[in-house]
């Protein structure tokens, strides 16, 4: 049977970490998380690993494998050269709790600052209608499993001090899902520009590279949001146009409500009639 040589980071805050080596017998189809479980069950019972579903659906087991942010439950040992040691370390952008577990609570605090979905007051839900094509963009963002690998790899969060905080790719994705919801009435552009710090993103696409759900974070979420912020704050033509038409800057761009044939048996012509 093949053997994988794992170099696993061990340590606690305020002490220099160390790497411990483990030889793990390899079964077919084995992933890094399986190897870590083998280590827990046979060699280091107190190895701290955060995991839940082991099916790439909950986003708990994020770590850095050979320096790359990955979900360990989805990283197969067969992708590695087993003659070389495989280094497993915690997500480096966040404070360490112990071994491979980091304190990601900051992310939850950021999330709480985003204005939630705001449906219209004047349209009863029984009349809400929208088409699959209206929500395909939003559904892509909502695939996010909050593994925070994008936050971990984002160089603004990982390497930099900034004057103001930066919300990070995960929450730009959430904001995009709200802003582009066909019925959402809130306008988060000023928030994105100021509190969220969207200008700190310099679209170097590492978040897209590491996303285990294959969300095109940069192209489909961040850039469209940057463009929406530009509409509001950096486009003199649109600003003049809005002023001339009497719309005050800051009013929600998405305030127009869908108007579709309603009632029982009502169908949209969907462009096909």
């Amino acid at each position, binding site marked *: 049977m093949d053997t994988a040589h794992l170099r696993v980071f061990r340590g606690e805050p305020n002490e220099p970490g160390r790497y411990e080596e483990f030889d793990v017998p390899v079964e077919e189809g084995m992933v890094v998380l399986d190897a870590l479980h083998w280590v827990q069950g046979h060699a280091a019972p107190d190895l701290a690993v955060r995991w839940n579903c082991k099916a790439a659906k909950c986003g708990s087991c994020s770590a850095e494998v050979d320096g790359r942010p990955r979900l360990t439950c989805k990283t197969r040992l067969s992708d590695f050269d087993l003659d070389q040691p495989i280094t497993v370390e915690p997500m480096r952008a966040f404070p360490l709790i112990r071994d491979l577990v980091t304190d990601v609570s900051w992310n939850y605090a950021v999330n709480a600052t985003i204005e939630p979905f705001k449906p219209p007051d004047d349209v009863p839900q029984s009349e809400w209608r929208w088409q699959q094509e209206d929500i395909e963009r939003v559904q892509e963002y909502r695939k996010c499993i*909050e593994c925070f690998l994008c936050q971990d790899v984002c160089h603004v969060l990982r390497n930099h001090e900034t004057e103001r905080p930066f919300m990070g790719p995960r929450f730009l994705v959430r904001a995009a899902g709200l802003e582009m919801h066909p019925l959402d009435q809130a306008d988060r552009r000023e928030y994105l520009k100021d509190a969220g710090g969207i200008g700190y993103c310099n679209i170097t696409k590492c978040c897209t590279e590491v996303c285990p759900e294959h969300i095109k974070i940069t192209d489909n979420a961040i850039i469209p949001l940057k463009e929406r912020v530009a509409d509001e704050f950096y486009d003199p033509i649109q600003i003049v146009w809005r002023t001339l038409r009497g719309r005050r800057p800051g009013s929600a761009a998405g305030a127009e409500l869908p108007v579709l044939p309603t009632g029982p048996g009502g169908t949209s012509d969907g462009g096909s009639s």
Partner: protein
Amino acid sequence: MPPVTNLETHSHDVVVIGAGGAGLRAAIEAKAAGLSVGLVCKSLLGKAHTVMAEGGVAAALGNVADADSWQVHFRDTMAGGKYLNNARMAQLHAMEAPARVNELERWGAVFDRTPDGRILQRPFGGHSHARLAHVGDRTGLEMIRTLQDRAVAAGIDVYMEATITRLITGRAGATAAFGYWRATGSPILFRAKAIVLATGGIGKAYEVTSNSWEYSGDGHALAYEAGAELIDMEFVQFHPTGMVWPPGVRGLLVTEAVRGEGGILRNKDGERFMWKYLPDERRGEYAATDEEATRWVTALSEGRRTDARRPPELSTRDNVARAIYTEVKEGRGTPHGGVYLDISYLPPEHVRRKLPSMYEQFKELADVDITKGPMEVGPTTHYVMGGIRVEPDSGATTVPGLFAAGECAGGMHGANRLGGNSLSDLLVFGARAGAGATSHAINQPSGEAGFPHVDPVNVREATRELAAPLERVSGDDPYAIQRDLQATMQSLVGIFRVQADLDEALTQLAALRERGQRVQVAGGRSFNPGWDLAFELRNLITVSEAIARSARQRTESRGAHSRLDHPETDDARWGGLNSVVARAEDGTMAVSTSSLPTVPDELRALLGTAH
């Protein structure tokens, strides 16, 4: 005010334990009533097992099938549960599920759409009509994210990665929950006027399971220890389709939506074996020929209505699981010990759109492209129908101040749960338990005076118990005990059961409990998974014993409970009887039965002549 000095103590009107669908929904309900709510979960927020739910949430919205109504949903649920369900719960569930689903949409959930722009619904096993509102095959994720965002925006206090190890009880009933922060290992106490348990299931008692490590029966065991009754514990649902290969993902769920979208089950000889296993009394609901089944699938994928009946693969889960088990046992299984599930005859882009996570899961974990070839699947432990006995309307347990909802509560699903009924269960009874806890809490005096007295002796006892595994200098390794426990349950209390196996299981469980009391854990308090496991083991062993005792008592086969030595459903002896497990005076586990409440005539009329 801390009952014990220097102990971190939080006080909330309502404390909810568990932050899956039911826990979040209960917390939102209590918060909306203006109460102070604490939500305690042993993982990060939003990671609960609800994210694993794939197929959809069952609600008779009637967006796809006009003929659907709560009455039909109620009838399907009762028939699926082999009439062992609490009829009042099944009724409330069927009546309120549509409102709960619509509410999710109002809170920002983005369901797939029908051509006329409403919530799309898909067919599922045991449901007479297309009834499952869904988002591709990640409905659970959509649901938990929507509830999570709603809860956070409402200002609920969330205690993440805090494990509860004891409920502190007193004369007033449940008074507090004791546990520890996983990050630091330091103890923490939650005082509450009402406590809601929403801790999910028990799958980790088995070797092959679709459940995550969290599913260790915490709520079942905490409630049992606190004096509540558990019912129907013998009914453990084995999902017919889990992955069987590679070994590391054995048991991982393959959503029923694969069959809902037209997946065909075949054995190694290519035979579509489900035709053989349809129960005679329901055969009329299924297609008679391959051709009719194909017509049904084609109509579905084109969004057309059809008079064709559904394929045999959409039989109830207990039936399909037994069919697959039997095929494999009789030598017609695949090389890895499963059967084939094939959806690759449909257009690849349709499969990828309707089943995106299944496509990814097989491609990345098993090197199988499900648009090109069949999957290999086999039964996997999935869900426990049994749970804490609750009042249907309020979720109140038999312990005052203690409520339960979701998978850890019993009664709703009877002997077998229909797919899609769990997500709606979470929403309907989550909200109801939240409301029940709210009215219990507001009936107490306001402010500090309303909190029941917490007995410091019990708290100190819980603190000692917490430290014990770390302080022992010798003892048993928790991982080894867990492996042995899982082997026992898998081989002796699995899909098919016999008296001798169950007796043997009880003997082995007694030995495991002994070992569990001597468990010794290496390392310190900070995020120590072995230490976590020490408490989960205690809960798992309690729950396993409840399953084995209930299974031994019920000398018939019904729903998910199949006795080889009693293969018939024995309505005369067992119809309308729930198994009940409770702690006896001497601390041992006592098992008995109790009759189902009388079903009101108007509901009985819905069930037809037979019942």
